[in-house]
């Protein structure tokens, strides 16, 4: 019986290791396959391009627009309609709306990214525990999640901001918290669909702990639905942030968050409609782009679902 590994390794030539077989044979990239499917979806590509443009605008604003540029009051320049000098016109205090809107990109993108990331990390952690371990762990997590889901996101956000005080960070937390329960349910459902698989039992048979199995074997199988959900949640989060800012629960007033811009402009709807129009278009474009991309990703990541 020669079952010691050490002998068998020695018996293979050392020189063999110079060309690893895993390098020699190409791995079929799941990412490339999905990308090729996504590329042929015009809606998703439109969404992706819009999102990239938004990110570029944000980078531009960080490099070329200072806080002074967007806050300086110029009473001689009030309510100017769009022109070459002011592409989006000026507001009630003579500030350039183009600069303010572009400057505001950072808030919406930050909310979209960080609040979803927060909801994702927390939600997936608890959702995975609930789905994999079941029992009272699941019972407690799901009850709490149901309670959170039953409170409308806006209301939950208002309560959290009311308690913590209006600031951008608190807005992030408020929306992040309202994102949690969606991810809990999503990840729990996809965990349930694979946890009975024999490969889970195989992992147990090589001595893995249940916790490790849950996160290293089972969770990676729910990556696709999570990406899809995350993209869709970005849209709702951007909208919720704008909504909260609109009613004064978000980014403090003079800062040019898109919702705050609309809130400011609604007082002059007849006189200067551009004040609400341009920030509105930006909100719409961003949320629409994320929804389209989310739909496209669903088809691209899991072609079986489409049928």
């Amino acid at each position: 019986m020669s079952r010691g590994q050490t002998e068998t390794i020695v018996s293979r030539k050392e020189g063999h290791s110079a060309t690893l077989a895993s390098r020699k044979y190409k791995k079929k990239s799941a990412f490339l396959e999905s990308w090729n499917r996504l590329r042929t979806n015009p809606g998703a590509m439109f969404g992706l391009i819009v999102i990239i443009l938004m990110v570029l605008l944000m980078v531009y604003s960080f490099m070329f627009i200072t806080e002074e540029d967007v806050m300086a009051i110029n009473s001689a320049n009030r309510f100017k309609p769009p022109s070459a000098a002011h592409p989006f016109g000026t507001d009630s205090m003579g500030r350039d709306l183009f600069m303010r809107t572009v400057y505001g990109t950072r808030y919406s993108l930050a909310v979209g990214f960080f609040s979803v990331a927060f909801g994702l990390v927390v939600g997936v952690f608890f959702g995975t525990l609930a789905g994999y371990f079941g029992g009272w762990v699941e019972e407690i997590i799901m009850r709490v999640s149901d309670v959170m889901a039953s409170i409308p996101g806006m209301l939950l956000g208002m309560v959290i901001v009311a308690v913590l005080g209006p600031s951008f960070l608190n807005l992030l937390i408020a929306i992040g918290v309202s994102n949690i329960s969606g991810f809990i349910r999503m990840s729990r459902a996809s965990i349930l669909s694979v946890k009975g698989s024999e490969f889970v039992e195989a992992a147990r048979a090589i001595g893995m702990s249940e916790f490790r199995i849950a996160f290293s074997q089972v969770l990676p199988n729910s990556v696709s639905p999570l990406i899809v959900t995350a993209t869709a949640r970005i849209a709702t989060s951007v909208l919720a942030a704008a909504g909260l800012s609109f009613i004064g629960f978000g980014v403090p007033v003079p800062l040019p968050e898109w919702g705050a811009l609309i809130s400011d402009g609604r007082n002059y709807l007849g006189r200067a409609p551009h004040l609400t129009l341009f920030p509105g278009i930006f909100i719409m474009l961003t949320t629409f782009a994320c929804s389209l991309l989310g739909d496209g990703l669903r088809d691209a990541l899991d072609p079986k679902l489409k049928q």
Partner: protein
Amino acid sequence: MGNTILEVKNLKKYFKSPRGMVHAVDGVQFSIERGQTLGVVGESGCGKSTLGRCVLRLIEPTEGEVFFEGRDICKLKKREIKELRKEMQIIFQDPFSSLNPRKTVLEIISEPIVFNKLMPGASRAQIENRVLELMDTVGIAERLINAYPHELDGGRRQRIGIARALAMNPKFIVCDEPVSALDVSIQAQILNLLKKLQKEMGLTYMFITHDLSVVHYFSNDIIVMYLGQVVEKAPSDVLFKNPLHPYTRALLSSILVPKVGGNQDTIQLRGEVTSPIDPPDECRFAKRCDYRCETCEGSNPPLVEVEENHFVACHCVKPGENLLKKSGAVSAS
């Protein structure tokens, strides 16, 4: 007896269900000699897989003892179980759900080695060489090392499942219906592979199947299970030549090749299957048995040795007398 690798005593596993306790495994007893194969046969739902998982302690038995190389594995602590995993492995039925779809062949086969630090201090290349060697052992081409399971057919997937089990260097493997999901031609290849591995590595198998023709080819001893209990236990040849339990006869008659001119009838099982949920104290096969009498409904027959190494649990079969023969039962020889 010194060469017994596994001994199971009065093993029970009950599952809770809304309507009562499911007696999935109910007082099973057997032992396996080193290097041999024990076949476990029985229809779907009779508790074969549950038995296999209890023996590996992948699930906790409700009651009973499992001695592996003399140690009762039901009493081991967590850390000791982890050591035990290196000795005992399992091969699964469904090659489509037994491999993680997110992992490549290399990752699947190397995982047991890396996770259990089976090759301490080995470089990536050395581990990879070991994987290539295992792939070679089970007959998988080197070029598939980076393939994902969905790119492979059932037979290849099953080979990878076998390689993963071998990566632990086990002494004992539970094969849970390893060929039932495969085409007949591929079944033979996998069976030959398992047999070859057994010979080369001195492996001991517990071979679960619902197909008697498969175990005949494979096993030294066979146990026949019915609703969580062993109804007959005998060396493979004896069981095929002289099946004594009515259930075994029915199973056997269904696989015998009809001879030209012969009047070999298959035995049809009729009647309702006793529920495994809190079964009453009567012969569990009685409701489907052509030979049932009052004794059968009075108590559950124990497993008794009717001839050397041949155990049967039937009220109508006792040492030296076989009431079934008298009532003109079909001879299955």
